């Protein structure tokens, strides 16, 4: 894009700035508009679940503009800060939350190679950045100088730190199967029929997905794990003292991270932008050099991805409006006694499964092969070029460290 713009913009560096801005604006719009739509959706979904209509008037029949109207109202509201509050931290906290939530989108691919920045460690990057959201919450709770807020912050700190452990473990399982932490690669590996999705790879990945989703719900603070804001106990928890725009920024962050973890779930387990049927391949939209066709294929992929994300978010809403809230000790028990051991066991199980049956459950030795180092390798495992000239050397030099290691080491050598 920058190269394209360079032809038109006189100061050459402006092209980069404009390109960067366009990317940033695109992403921030996904978050902001996404939050608007999700808040509207949440109202509609909760309304329908509760046997009422939800918003019906603002902006036409379905209340499309309700969130916007609320946003306008929130902007005009007085921005209050308690007297004893720590001014700087109180003001910073919502933006920290929002930035953390927003930064996760940087590495989230919306379609094949449609990604802000293709990172080699995208999975961990997203998890790490989303985990930073907790700082905003803790600081907000502390800086508010309110006991209820402090309670909320303490709960959040304990909860999120604990849930990062099983969450990370669950995310590692698809990484293990794909052999890459690059989300684009992981998505590409699952193309074709829905049976190639990692959730159907083996029984352990299926279990892992549910553990992942539970932990993700907990780590983005959604009911039944919304202890940090538990309105029946802590008034409003960490955002008790917030009002107006700052308050709404907390909500943007919450919906932003809901979408992000759903997106991560879609890519890690549900094939990302690949539909259940390889329609884009039938239409000749995949692997084509024609830019228009490839754009069209990617666009369909993006719709697929969006649909999966929205489904994930709606699922979280459904859970929220159905279940009572857990108590703090029960939340910790769920994490430490159930999620972590299950995640660890399925990690082990998936490891063994991948070692013995690398092709997965439905299609043993499927044609798509394994991916190493971000490259798609066709052909069976181990790749043919692992038998490179230096395999012997590799074996010699890593004697005693096991077959698998020398094999992969040889493979590396062959590639380098």
């Amino acid at each position, binding site marked *: 894009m920058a190269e394209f713009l360079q032809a038109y913009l006189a100061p050459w560096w402006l092209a980069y700035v404009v390109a960067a801005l366009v990317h940033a604006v695109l992403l921030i719009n996904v978050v902001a508009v996404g939050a608007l739509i999700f808040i509207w959706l949440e109202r509609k979904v909760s309304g329908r679940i509760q046997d009422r209509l939800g918003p019906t008037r603002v902006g036409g029949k379905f209340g499309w503009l309700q969130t916007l109207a609320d946003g306008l109202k929130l902007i005009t509201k007085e921005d209050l800060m308690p007297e004893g509050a720590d001014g700087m931290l109180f003001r910073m906290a919502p933006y920290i939350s929002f930035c953390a939530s927003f930064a996760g989108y940087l590495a989230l691919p919306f379609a094949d190679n449609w990604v802000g920045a293709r990172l080699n460690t995208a999975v961990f*990057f997203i998890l790490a950045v989303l985990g930073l959201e907790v700082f905003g919450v803790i600081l907000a709770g502390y800086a508010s100088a309110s006991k209820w807020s402090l309670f909320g912050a303490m709960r959040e700190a304990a909860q999120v730190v604990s849930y990062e452990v099983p969450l990370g473990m669950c995310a590692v399982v698809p990484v293990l199967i794909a052999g890459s932490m690059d989300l684009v690669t992981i998505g590409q590996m699952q193309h074709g029929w829905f049976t190639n999705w990692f959730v159907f790879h083996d029984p352990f990945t299926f279990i892992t997905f549910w553990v992942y989703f539970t932990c993700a719900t907990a780590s983005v603070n959604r009911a039944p794990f919304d202890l940090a804001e538990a309105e029946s106990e802590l008034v409003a928890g960490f955002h008790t003292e917030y009002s107006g725009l700052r308050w709404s920024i907390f909500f943007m962050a919450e919906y932003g991270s809901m979408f992000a973890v759903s997106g991560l779930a879609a890519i890690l387990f549900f094939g990302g932008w690949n539909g259940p049927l390889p329609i884009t391949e039938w239409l000749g939209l995949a692997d084509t050099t024609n830019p228009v066709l490839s754009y069209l294929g990617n666009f369909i992929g993006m719709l697929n991805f969006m649909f999966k994300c929205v489904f994930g978010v709606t699922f979280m809403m459904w859970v929220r409006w159905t279940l009572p809230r857990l108590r703090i000790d029960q939340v910790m028990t769920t994490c430490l006694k159930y999620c972590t051991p299950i995640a660890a066991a399925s990690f082990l199980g998936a490891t063994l499964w991948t070692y013995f049956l690398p092709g997965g459950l439905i299609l043993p030795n499927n044609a798509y092969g394994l991916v190493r180092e971000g490259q798609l390798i066709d052909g069976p495992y181990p790749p043919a070029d692992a038998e490179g000239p230096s395999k012997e050397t590799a074996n010699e030099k890593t004697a005693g460290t096991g077959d698998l290691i020398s094999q992969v080491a040889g493979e590396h050598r062959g590639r380098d």
Partner: protein
Amino acid sequence: MDAINWHSFFFLFFALLACGFSLAVVMTSNIVHMAFYLTLALGATSGLFFLAGADFVGAMQLLIYVGGTLVLLIFGVMLTAKGPFISMKTSAGDLVLGAGVGGALLVLLLAAATQVDAWRVSEPSPPVAQVTASRLGMALLGARVDKLDEKDPVQARGMSGYLLPFEIVSVHLLVVLIGSAYLARPKKRMVGGPVDTA
């Protein structure tokens, strides 16, 4: 005019953030603000790691350091941040002493950092990105895939990888886990009596 080197530009950005917030940690006396600045400093450092091509280390810095250790630290700060402990002033003598020693140390280190010519500049066009995550994993398991072709015996040293340190760290973490659980275990105290440290 030369083209802006974006690597340098972002380096400058993150370096200023990291240094600025590190100094802010020293300057402020409010413990909660300190923790906050430390978070930002370490976050900026992870940006530096990304820039230096160490993706995995950068992500780990964010995940373990910023997301785990610092949350723990802030947790500890919040447990103990009460009244007089929020801002404890350092005596002027200590400050002068610290600044003097620190300044001297800084001069020494900066001199050392800028002494070697080969360190000052890098290749104008850095090589293509390398994926380091699986290499690091292999190295931790004892196979140095980046040194397979090394002929120089000095450079080839360390071929055995990091299997032993890796194991030691694992055991160490276990020990720490048990140790800190032991230290923070519930203790018994007599009502109205002295603390029983049993």
